[in-house]
């Protein structure tokens, strides 16, 4: 597959702060690339540099094989962007907003009318097309924001946290819409904080922190990076402090917690972890009602790689 985006050695500083530090990656045609990272990791700055909205200090950016610049109108005509902030006109109706932004790309009125209707259908706003943004709920507003960014049927779409603060129904609608866009052949760059969305949608993921790529790969490749093998949850009605501390002596156990009759044991990579623990329960005559194990999630990998301390 062809590279739709090629970023080579991109660096961007705000005075002394290095927001993006020697970043290089490619995006293949037709894939959904997840761009993950804590707040301030450089996701949005990277996106703005790629879109030629921001000056950058060093590096090279090519889109569809051509160098990206503010006047690269042929490239821009194939790009759609859904920004993090809702970017619509309060004074225009839902239809007016989509038609206005679509009209910046598509001049033919008949084609545009068809595209606007398609976008309304895609985000489920056909019945709201004569309403004004102030009359829409937060979820509907987000959907309008998406429709304004993709109505012109772009080949490359940037989605910057499109599901922030939306209700589960709207979120589901948005994710379904994104899948449809991918199925129609669009290449998508998707930034989000919601790991489950990445697991559902993205073919490949890049994790950024402090302006650098700290990991990249498919969901499975990233999960394989996790130090933990599994997380075991056991319902134990009664447990003495001695019995509890005994769990820490089981081979490969990295973390033990007990709260309200529920015990959580985290195992590092190794063999027969679950069997060893069941043996320990039997040997110490500890009564338990339920037991189940979970494989590490992308969220676990993310927290392992970026740390658990709070970010701004």
């Amino acid at each position: 597959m062809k590279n739709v985006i090629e970023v080579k050695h991109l660096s961007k500083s705000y005075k002394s702060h290095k927001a993006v530090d020697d970043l290089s990656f490619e995006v293949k045609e037709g894939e959904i690339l997840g761009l993950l990272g804590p707040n301030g990791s450089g996701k949005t700055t990277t996106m703005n540099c790629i879109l030629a909205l921001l000056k950058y200090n060093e590096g090279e950016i090519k889109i569809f094989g051509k160098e990206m610049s503010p006047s690269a109108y042929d490239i821009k005509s194939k790009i759609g962007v859904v920004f993090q902030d809702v970017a619509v006109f309060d004074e225009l109706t839902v239809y007016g907003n989509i038609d206005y932004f679509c009209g910046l790309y598509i001049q033919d009125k008949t084609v545009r009318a068809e595209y606007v209707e398609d976008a309304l259908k895609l985000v489920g706003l056909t019945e709201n097309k004569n309403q004004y943004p102030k009359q829409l709920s937060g979820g509907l507003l987000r959907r309008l924001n998406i429709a304004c960014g993709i109505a012109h049927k772009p080949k490359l779409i940037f989605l910057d946290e499109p599901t922030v603060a939306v209700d589960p129904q709207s979120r589901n609608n948005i994710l379904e819409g994104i899948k449809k866009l991918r199925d129609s052949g669009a290449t998508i760059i998707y930034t989000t904080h919601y790991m489950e969305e990445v697991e559902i949608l993205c073919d490949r993921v890049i994790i950024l922190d402090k302006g650098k790529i700290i990991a990249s790969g498919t969901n499975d490749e990233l999960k394989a990076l996790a130090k933990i093998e599994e997380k075991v949850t056991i319902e134990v009605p009664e447990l003495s402090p001695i019995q509890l501390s005994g769990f820490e002596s089981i081979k490969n156990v990295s973390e033990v917690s007990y709260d309200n009759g529920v015990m959580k044991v985290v195992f590092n990579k190794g063999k027969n972890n679950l069997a060893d623990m069941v043996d320990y329960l039997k040997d110490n005559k500890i009564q338990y009602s339920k037991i189940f194990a979970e494989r590490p999630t992308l969220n676990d990998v993310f927290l392992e790689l970026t740390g658990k301390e709070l970010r701004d």
Partner: protein
Amino acid sequence: MFWHSFKYAFRALLKSKAMMFWTLIFPFILAILFNMAFARLHDFDVFEAFDVAVVDDENFRDSEIFKEAFKTLSEEGEEQLFVTQYVDSEKADQLLADEKVDGIVYIVDGEPHVKIKKNGTNQTVLTTAVEQIYQSSKMIEDIAGTKINEAVSEMSPEQLMRGEMPDVEKIYKDAVATVSEAEPNVKDDSRVMNMVVIEFYTLIAMACMQGSMLSSEMMDRCLPNITSRGKRVAVAPTRKGIVIASNLLASYSILLLSLIALIAFMRFVLGVEFGSNLGFIILLAAVGGLASTVMGMMLSIVLKTNNAAKNVIILIITMVGCLFAGMFGGNKGFFDNLSPIINKISPVGMITDGFYSLYYYADLARYFSNVYGLLIVAAIFMILSIRGLRRQRYDSI
């Protein structure tokens, strides 16, 4: 693409309640309030001359024009405006404190000043009359100065060598006569009515300045460092110049329609007599509105701050310009002397000067110098805007 963008920018502005209030509704409200405030002046049967105190000191006695003007305006008859008491400074203050006069007029360094205790119609008439007298005196000086220079340049070197000089006294008398004849160029030549007209001129000038707010608002919607909508426009394959030009035209169209509606409302509903000046008023308003609109665009590009802060800065710049131009009861002459350059380069200064010149001058030379000045300022603002816009990518957004 241009008309697509224009259509939606125009529609968005029309539906913006805040913008339409300040551009269209607010000047109409002010016009109605002005009309109500001056209503009694329309009925000359009920207009009564009111008491004023003039500080009769050396400064006043040296000012021939003010002496003559107050003598004329205090003469008993149909056109009497003031019942004037010529007193010293202390006595004048006492009369004002006791509310036995509506205001005090005193001269410092050739400039008139008005002291009032409260606001009211009489106080407004007094302030406007004094400003009018001062403008007339400045105009006489201007005309006489020009004529003296012309006379000197026409004299031969031999005449100059002989020490011959132009007839300065005659030139001054002619200038006074010119100013007197020029006054006023409207059907109703009552002094009181002319003061009302000049207040309406001031209102039109202020309405012109709303163009800055309109264009600034529209520009912010196109700039990626200010709004997300601007970012969305910036990533589209449409040339930035086309989007900005269409937004600017939409802002100007709305302003122009509002100004024409305001002038028509003043003329045909409120019955303000603009005489034969109506066409010139519309032309000056159109050019002034253009300069104001381009100024708003330039400031929006140059000021790297958020929309709200930008609006406050534009408002301050506009209001300072209005104050220097003699609005809000200010004395234009005083500010002309304080900082002559501001009124010469600020759009609002040129707009008001253009209106004043329509009122004070018989010929249109000064009026057109203001029209051309506004066009030049608009061109300079446009060049600065284009230079600013060339920095299409930002260090931070």
